[in-house]
Structures are given as C-alpha cells and as structure tokens.
C-alpha cells in the first residue's frame, strides 16, 4: 500500500505496557496516568504552535488597546475634557488588566486556554497531572514580564543611541528566554518551568461513522478467503481506514487496484472500488481483531505471528 503516505504511528499507536520501558511513539507524547490507572498519552504542543498562539493573543490585545484608546479619546473629546481624569483611570487600569490578566483569566477558566491557544487546540496542564492551581497560572504568566514585556520595553525605550554593550546584553537576555522552549524536551518556557505546567494539545474530535458497520458484510457479495485476509497487518489497515474516510476517488482506485492484485481478487462486473475496499476493510479488521483477542498483534504485513 505504498500509494498512500506512510502512516506515522499516531498518538493512538497502542502501547502494550507503556510504564514498563515502552518507548513513546512520538517525541512529543507523554504519559499521563489517571488515578484510575489509564495512560491518556497526551501530546505536547510544538514550539511553533506555542508561538502562533501567543501571536494571536498579542494581536487581539493590541487591537483591543488601540480600539479602547480611540474610544477613550473620543469620549474625552465629546465631554470637552470634563471626564478626562475618570477616563484616564479606566484606561490605565484597563491597560494593566489586559497586560497582566488576559492570560490569567482565560487560563483559570474551565478550558485553561487563551483564545490564541484555543485556535491551535492547546491547553495548559499541570506537569504532574491533576489540578491546575491558580498560583501555578499566576507564576507562569508573571514570568511573561521578563520574557516578553521587559525586552519589549527595552526595545521601545532605548531604540536610538545606546551603548552597544547594553544592546548586546539585551539581545542575549531576550534570546535566552525566547528560545528557552527549544532547549528542553518538554518545550517549557521559563514560566512553565517555574509554575510546574506545560502546554498540551487538546484536540476536539467527533466520532465519525463506523466503517465496518453490519450492512457491509450483509451485502454478501464479498467473501474473502482466510489467506486473503492475512495479506496485511495493522499499519496497512490504518492506511486503508484513512483512505476510506478521505474518500478521494483516485486514491480509492489506486488502493483497490493494489489490493486486488496482492490478494488475487477477480473484480466483479459492477463492483465499485469503494464497496470492495469497505468490505475488505471490515474483513481485515475482523481478522486482525480476532488475532488481537488471542493476544497477537500483527503490526504490519512484514510481521509474521
């Protein structure tokens, strides 16, 4: 089944006993054992996803500040400056809140994610599992002060004519903190390190339809020999699943052709590629799941039990 992309072992690649030296299939996959003893295999966010999420948040914050400033100026102008002091207070406190509380409030919520993180399907979680406490969220966001705002202030206030040494020190400082996540395997930024948190993927998946529903086999047209069902393993089954779910006509044709050739299947007169593949998928899954129940997991077509 080389027509399709090689199937990377996804997060669902089952590990028989991950706690006993089972190597994670993915460099970003981590163990998260619930109190019930089930390993949820969470996946960490990559550095680029984190950066993207932050940029989305920053863009929203800047947009709000600009809009609010214009509104404040308009309000002051409309009232002939009589409310200037009140507007000033509101603006100052609003700016302070946006700068400090934006991340705090969103991450304290039930989804533990700012709008930027939601866009990328991420959330903050405690590294030890369990409860994400308010003090941890405070700590991880207070650290933004030195990761983001200090370099930014430095950049804005000393744009012209400062000592080259100071600029170099500033760049070094910024570089160390901004690139910090790239130099540890859990992609922790300074705030995560101090707070005991990390950022994980929280994909939203919907339950798709069952490919091997009863109606497939009831059709009765496709009866496979046991030998034909032993041609492939689990990796190929998953590729077949992807092809069927994507339902791309050309891909279906190519894959159907390959399978027919491999198992020696004579194509019927009005047999559609899709119907054939679904039937074969159901048959193969039934066969491989049967093996699974006997404790044999046939990884791919090269793996003999």
């Amino acid at each position, binding site marked *: 089944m080389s027509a399709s992309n090689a199937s990377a072992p996804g997060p*669902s690649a*089952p590990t028989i006993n991950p706690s006993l030296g089972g190597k994670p299939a993915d460099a970003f996959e981590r163990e*998260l054992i619930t*109190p*019930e003893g*089930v390993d*949820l295999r969470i996946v960490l966010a990559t550095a680029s996803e984190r950066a993207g999420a932050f940029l989305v948040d920053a863009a929203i914050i800047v947009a709000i500040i600009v809009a609010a400033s214009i509104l404040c100026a308009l309000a002051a102008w409309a009232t002939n400056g009589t409310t*200037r*002091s*009140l507007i*000033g*207070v509101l603006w*100052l*406190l609003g*700016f*302070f809140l946006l*700068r*400090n509380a934006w991340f705090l409030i969103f991450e304290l919520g*039930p*989804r*533990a994610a700012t709008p930027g993180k939601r866009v990328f399907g991420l959330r903050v979680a405690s590294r030890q599992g*369990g*409860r994400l406490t*308010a*003090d*941890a969220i*405070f*700590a*991880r966001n*207070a*650290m*933004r*002060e*030195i990761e983001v705002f*200090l370099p930014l202030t430095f950049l804005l206030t000393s744009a012209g004519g400062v000592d080259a040494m100071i600029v170099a020190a500033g760049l070094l400082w910024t570089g160390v903190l901004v690139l910090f996540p790239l130099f540890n395997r859990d992609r*922790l930024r300074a705030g995560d*390190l*101090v*707070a*005991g948190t990390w950022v994980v993927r*929280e994909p939203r*998946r919907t*339950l*798709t339809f*069952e490919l*091997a*529903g*009863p109606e497939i*086999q*009831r059709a009765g047209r496709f009866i496979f020999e046991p030998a034909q069902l032993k041609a492939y393993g689990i990796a190929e089954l*998953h590729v077949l*699943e992807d092809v069927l*779910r994507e339902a791309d006509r050309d891909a279906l044709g190519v894959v159907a052709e390959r399978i027919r050739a491999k198992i020696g299947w004579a194509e019927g007169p009005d047999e559609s590629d899709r119907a054939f593949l679904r039937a074969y998928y*159901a048959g193969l*899954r*039934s066969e*491989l*799941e049967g093996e*699974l*129940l006997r404790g044999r997991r046939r990884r791919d077509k090269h793996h003999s039990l």
Partner: protein
Amino acid sequence: MAELELKSARFRREREGDWGRLERLLQRLEREPASKLSDDDLLAIPVLYSATLSALSVARETSLDRSLLDYLESLSTRAYFLVYGTRPSLRDRLTSFFAKDWPKAARALWRETVLSATLVLLGAGAAAWLFATDNDWYFAFVPGQYAGGRDPTATTAALRAVLYQHGSQNALQLFAAFLFTHNAQIAVLAFALGFAFGVPTALLLFTNGCIMGAMMALYAAHGLLFPLGGWLLIHGVTELFATILAGAAGFRIGWSLAFPGERTRPEAAAAAGRQASTLMAGVLIMLMVAALLEGIGRQVITNDIARYGVAAASGIGWLVYLYRPRNFPR
C-alpha cells in the same frame, strides 16, 4: 457467517450513546457554570467519565478502529481535565487565600524576606552615606523623573511645599491608578527577575533603597526629615513591605533554580514558583492599598502626626496579619 457484526463495532454501538452524552455535558460545562446543570447531569459526569475511560482501555486492546481510539482518547482527556481539574468556587478560594495561603507563604519565605529587607536598607544606608560625603551623588541615585525638582539645588521652602500639596480630587484618582499600575508592574518584574538566579532582583531592591536613602538624606540636610518621614511612610510602610516581599518571592525562585537540593531542578522550581506566586498575589493587594494611601490618603491627610499614625497602624497591621502565630487548618 453467523457473526455479522464485528465485536468492536458492537462494542462501539452499545456505548456511543453514553460517550455522546458525556461530550455534550463537557461542552456545556465549558461554556456555563456548573450550577446551571441539573443534579442528574452533574452526578452522571463522573460515571460517564469512568465508563469512557474503561472503554478506552478495552478499545486499545481489542479495537483497530483508529478513529474510535482517537475519539475516545480525546474525550477521556477532556473529561479527565474537567473531573480532576475542578476547582473550588471563587469564594472558597478567596477565603482560603486570605485565611491561610497568603500568611503561610509569607512565613515560609521569611529568610528571603530578611535578605530582601537587608538589601533595601543597605541601599538606603549607602546612598545616605555617599550623599553626606558629596551632594552630587544625589543625581546618580535619583533619576530626573522621580526627583521632580527635589534635588540639592532646591530651597527648603520648595522641598517643604512638595510634602503638603493638596491635589484636586479628580487628579488624585488618576494619580492613585497610575501609582498602582506602575508599582505593581515593578513588583511583578522584581519577582520574575528572580529567574536569573535572583541577581537582577537584588540589584533592583538595592537601587530602590538608594533612591529612598538619597531623598531622605537630602531632606535631612534641610532639617525636614520628620515631615518627610510622615510623607513617605504613610504609604511607604505598605509599599516598601510589598516590594520587599516581591523581592523575597523572586529570591525563592532564583534560589530553587540555583540550588534545587534533593529534588530535580524543574520540581524544585515548580514548588518554589507556586509558593512565591501566592505571596505575589498578596503583594499586588498590598500595592493597591499603598497606592490608595499614597494617591489619596497622603494628599488628604497633611498632618504629620496623623501621617505617622496611619503609617504605624498599617505596619503593625501587616505584621500581625502575616506573622501572628496561628494554627493552619490542614
């Protein structure tokens, strides 16, 4: 073929109703407070969660339907975060913070607090001593923006006038808001700088001490130390205490990163960070109080004795609140 349906397909058919219900409940909980859900629904969540989790375990061993496994993993993870991540209500958290967490953190960091206070006092002492040797040192310690005309060239009358200004009520609110946001930002900075092993935090504390020391020495040279004390301490007790605590929080982080002890460095840093940030939340509250005292209280109260009274009351108040012996309920 007697068996028309795959075992794994039947497994899924029999349970997907429950999974769908859990998914809908999770969606509701993410949008609205738990109090809006019916008792039935709330009680169902843990049951549905453990059913889903055990379905995941079974599916991993028996099903080769990858989309089903992905779905169950995603659903279980979301439910896990919700079931085990639930936090007490805001009111309970606030009560616990004021009754227990904040004083506890302040006491746990007493060594850092002493260090932090020493640095501020050292800064003040050094600046005062240097000012006594040569008045020009003043300009090295107090940047122009803080001085606002209060420098060695000013007359005694001008220096005195600053201490007893009345502001208009409107300007005072703005002033208080500015002071709070400015000081809070500095405090958060002092805390965060602890990450660089506490060195910048120490510098920040020392320079703040210098500014204070230089200004006090300037006023003392004009025989205005007593009124300056009232002017400074009415809010300064609270503000300085808050700054010292912020520095202490920073030192705790820096120390745990440099010397993690028996734990791994990330573990030590995380434990220190949480404790220190509890203290920092308290620091922000103190700074809010200080800004109100400075921006409004000081401009309204112009009597020296009254100013000293407020200063003493606030100092004793904070000390008693944070360090009074008490039994923390477990």
